[in-house]
């Protein structure tokens, strides 16, 4: 996506090094005056990059996309929710968050503002594992960052008000693709995941047609199991360790022909569907158009595609929570 915020500032490496995730567009100007685009918003900043430029004392050009006030407001709301006890208070606070989300992203605010607030508030996964994800594929971490943030809002609109549970949803979604971090990860695996999102059940056939190797196919088919195993090894990070099971539902489809277990729609609970929906809303790619129009993006899903996934009910509740446009879509045929 082209930078929407044209206002760029000079940023020395020592300032940039304070960030964990790049929250804007990063450029480097050559001596001849040419400007090179170095980093997109949402990309994780790795140490080697910092070291390399620290040695050269590089000064970057930087244009931020996030709204720090919005991020701070979301963080405040999350903190308020954290210390509430009674269900009515929790429900009302959750409603406030959803309303604020709706009001914010109806304007041209970048979705990363919310994603950053969620990351700062809920992320509990070890940094080295997230780094591993980033090293496997630059876009894999970014995709997980956005999916996890969407899981938060889907959770809230689906009557999950409990802070620790939302936190668990966030971390399960964020680490869902850790199962893909394998030496055999390739373009084929990433594209198969995307195909699976676009047309549930088509990823495996696509890989076979394209001549992916057995090792690559194995990475694709086994990644939910590997992800689940990873969470089992890190179950102490979760307030509700039973939610770890969700990792196994990532590629289950309504007709029971998904993998790894082939569970039909009738046996997928809403908490599983929250994560599955969040995961299927974002693909592994280097550019996301929804960043500045997330509400429209969420309403634009075709019912057909979602009916292939066991998430229809959760999606409807998301739309209801965000303003009932879903009903309009259905009425309009």
């Amino acid at each position: 996506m082209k930078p929407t915020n044209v206002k760029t500032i000079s940023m020395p490496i020592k300032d940039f090094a304070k960030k964990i995730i790049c929250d804007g567009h990063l450029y480097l100007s050559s001596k001849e005056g040419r400007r090179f685009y170095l980093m997109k918003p949402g990309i994780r900043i790795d140490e080697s990059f910092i070291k390399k430029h620290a040695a050269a004392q590089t000064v970057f050009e930087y244009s931020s996309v996030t709204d720090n006030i919005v991020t701070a407001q979301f963080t405040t709301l999350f903190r308020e929710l954290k210390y509430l006890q009674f269900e009515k208070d929790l429900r009302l606070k959750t409603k406030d968050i959803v309303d604020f989300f709706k009001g914010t992203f109806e304007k041209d605010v970048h979705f990363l503002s919310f994603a950053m607030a969620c990351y700062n508030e809920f992320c509990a996964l070890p940094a080295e594992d997230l780094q591993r994800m980033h090293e496997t594929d630059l876009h894999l971490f970014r995709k997980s960052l956005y999916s996890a943030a969407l899981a938060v809002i889907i959770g809230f609109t689906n009557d999950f008000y409990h802070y620790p549970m939302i936190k668990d949803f966030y971390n399960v979604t964020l680490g869902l693709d850790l199962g893909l971090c394998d030496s055999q990860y390739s373009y084929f695996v990433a594209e198969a995941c995307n195909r699976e999102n676009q047309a549930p059940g088509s990823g495996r056939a696509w890989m076979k047609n394209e001549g992916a190797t057995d090792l690559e196919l194995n990475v694709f088919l086994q990644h939910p199991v590997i992800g689940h195993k990873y969470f089992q090894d890190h179950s102490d990070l979760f307030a509700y360790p039973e939610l770890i099971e969700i990792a196994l539902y990532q590629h289950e489809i309504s007709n029971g022909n998904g993998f790894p277990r082939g569970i039909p729609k009738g046996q997928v609970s809403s908490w599983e569907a929250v994560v599955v929906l969040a995961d299927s809303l974002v693909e592994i790619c280097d550019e996301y158009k929804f960043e500045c129009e997330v509400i429209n993006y969420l309403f634009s899903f075709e019912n057909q595609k979602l009916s292939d996934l066991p998430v229809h009910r959760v999606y409807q509740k998301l739309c209801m929570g965000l303003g009932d446009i879903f009903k309009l879509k259905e009425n309009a045929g």
Partner: protein
Amino acid sequence: MDKMVKTKLAILNLAGELSPELSNYFAQKEIVIVDPESDNTSHIWTHVLTKNTHDFTNLSNMYDTIEKDVKIISLTAVEDLQNFVVSNGKLILDELWMKNSLGAFILDKFLQESGGIALGDNYPTFKEKGSFIITNPFNTGEYLDQMVQSAYLEGVSGLSIKTFFDHLVMYLTGLKNKSKLGMPIEVMYGYFEDVFGVQLHFFTKDLLLEDVTSSLSSNISKKAEEYLLNIAVKSSDFFDFTLLRQVNKTVITGLWTKDDRIQSENRGLLFNDLSASASITSYPTEGITSFQVNAQPLSDLSDKIVLPPSAAEEEFKTTVRGSKAEEEVINIIKGSAKEEEKAFKISGPKDFDVEKYAFRISSGIEDKKKGENHLKVTSLKNELPDAIKSSFHAYASKLNKSADDLSEEEFKNFNDVEIPQIIKQTSHKIDVDTPASKDAQKAFDLKVITLNAENEILKSKMKTLMSEVKILKESKTLMSEIQMKAAQAAQAATLTAISKNESSSADKALKAEIMEKMTLQKSLSAEDTKRLEEVFQKEATFLKESREQEIELRKMRIEMSQKETFFSAEIDKINRSLRAKELVFKKTKEDFSKLVEQKVLEIGNLNKKLNQTSKLMAASQSQNQVQQIRDLERQVMNHEKMIEIYKTKIIQKPGAKTEDDSSKDESKRLQLINNQMKNQLEIAKKDLTKYQERLALDSAAMNVLKVDKAKLEQQLKKAADDSKKEVLANLSNQQQDQDMKKLQLQHDFLDSQLKQKIMIQKELEVKLQDALKNQKKDIVADETSTKGKTAHLENNVRKLTQDLVENRNQLGEMKKETNKLRQDKIALQNQFDKMKKDLDKAKGAAPQKPGSSGQAA
């Protein structure tokens, strides 16, 4: 409902004669059912059917029910639930349930071993009334209040649901403490016809039968944990406990029916353990609720809690005139019937069911547990329902109306005048009946019962069909109803006020008269006392009525306010949707107008081209040029047509239906192009990876070369040293020559390899550039409408370009390396030449060997 049972089932019938409905069910599903008294054939039993059995241990031992997984079905209530479940008892289903539309579903579900986690997956077409998630079992108050209110509004005893839910949640908390259950618990509730259902589902891990039976004790003790589940089971009309082993989940459903035939002793129970191969039945669930969005204000429903009457109240109630049978009937219809949901329903023209009405009068209400003891009457004769039904229809036809269209007044008249007569006549007829005719009567009764049952089933089917239509109509009639009610309420209020004024003035006069008499005579006559009593009675009834009216008014007000908020919300929603529609429409309009502008621009460009070519043509008209011009003209024509199509699309947009096909074609075409481009990209990517691999190989070769070069340098150094040594030590020149040749050869080899690598690199560059050009060409040639779709491809191209730049950088570095190597080579060559010269010099300076033809001294 008509699904076939998949696996071959064989049921051993120890229950004796089965009801016609149950027999029909088994016959329809082609299930083998064997009565050992009449049939000696043996099968591998899958189920055992029992009735009035209370000790299941013997049965379990006799048929190895646990080892062979023979499931026990009891057709009557079971005294010891623990014993029943431990002996592999799975289903308790009274035959009465088969008269209800739900009975067949329950049996289907049990025998097919199907189930899911949503209410609709377990029971047919449930309309969801609410759902919520429990994460803290001690923090459920608001959810429970909402659910109980919803149950009361549906006419179901919310108190039973409250008891069920509280005990069940505490039982589940116990399971959680045993680490057998995981949070959250998802709760859904809703209704289907006259059945209200509550369903909970949650994670369970290694749940054993003992975990269930340990809380099923029938004894109420100090330790509530022992009977929690038992209370939950006994608070519902049907309790379903299903384990879904494949997904480690458990689903518990409680059902409450408004069918008066289902009493506490007919309570049902189902324990199902579904394996991985369990089939899933999925029925649609109507509506989706969100607690956040749909939470309604809670109203005070205290009047719904009616305690059993005390002895004094009972006595007061029996002061109704007439024979005993008449008293009972009249009591139901005229008296406290208003307190009871069903009686209230049958008194109005809506939802009037003659069948239920007649049944109700003839059999009475005996359910003490529902807290409506004052309605208790003894069962009357079997003849009554038909007599009431037929005379009711006769009464309606006499008034030239259908049963549904009778007004309140006409209905009241029927109750007051006709019913006592019917009872009198029927009682008389029964007294006169001879014993011989009784048998015939019995057979007739049986027929009537069967027919009634069939009728019930048909009715339930009809109801399911009609319910959809009703839901549609309901929304329209709601508003008018509210208005009517409001008007009625206002009217009633004024009438009460008037009557109150009238009666109070008469009563005041009477009171004054009696007071006067009291002061004058100091005693009252019997007649006066009676009159006074009547006045007091009147006052009491008046007070009662006014209180009832007040309650009704309050209810109506609440209802009104609820409806108002509901409708305003609906209107808001519609407005919002309209606004959104308008926005969508505007956007598409803008898109199309932009498209048209672009097309116009394209045409302008084409026209320019056309002019240019026509000028060229005028200069020299060759056949090729003519052809080109024709092509261009065609293109222009096509574009013009396209513009026309787009224009018509914009005009047709409000209709928005006809263009769908063409836009679909367009999108298909775009998708094709997209796919083609993607394929090209993928090929390019593959090529790129190949080239990258080659590059890696090349760099490896370069490394080898570097190593060789280092070796060579070492060798050269060595050679130089050697040569120096040779000069000093006068060693033989032949060896040096050979070394030189070797070095020369190695240099040549290095040279040739470098050239090859450079060639490969150039080829690689050219191929990459070609690939990029092709892609760019394709992208440029594509229509502007493909922009959105090709943006992704462009990005990929950009990505490829980045990769290319990287590769180029790598190539540059390699070139630099090559240059370095070249320089090294040249340096080495120079060194070599120098060394050669030195050698020659050394040769020249060296003394001639003896015997050689050297220069003369």
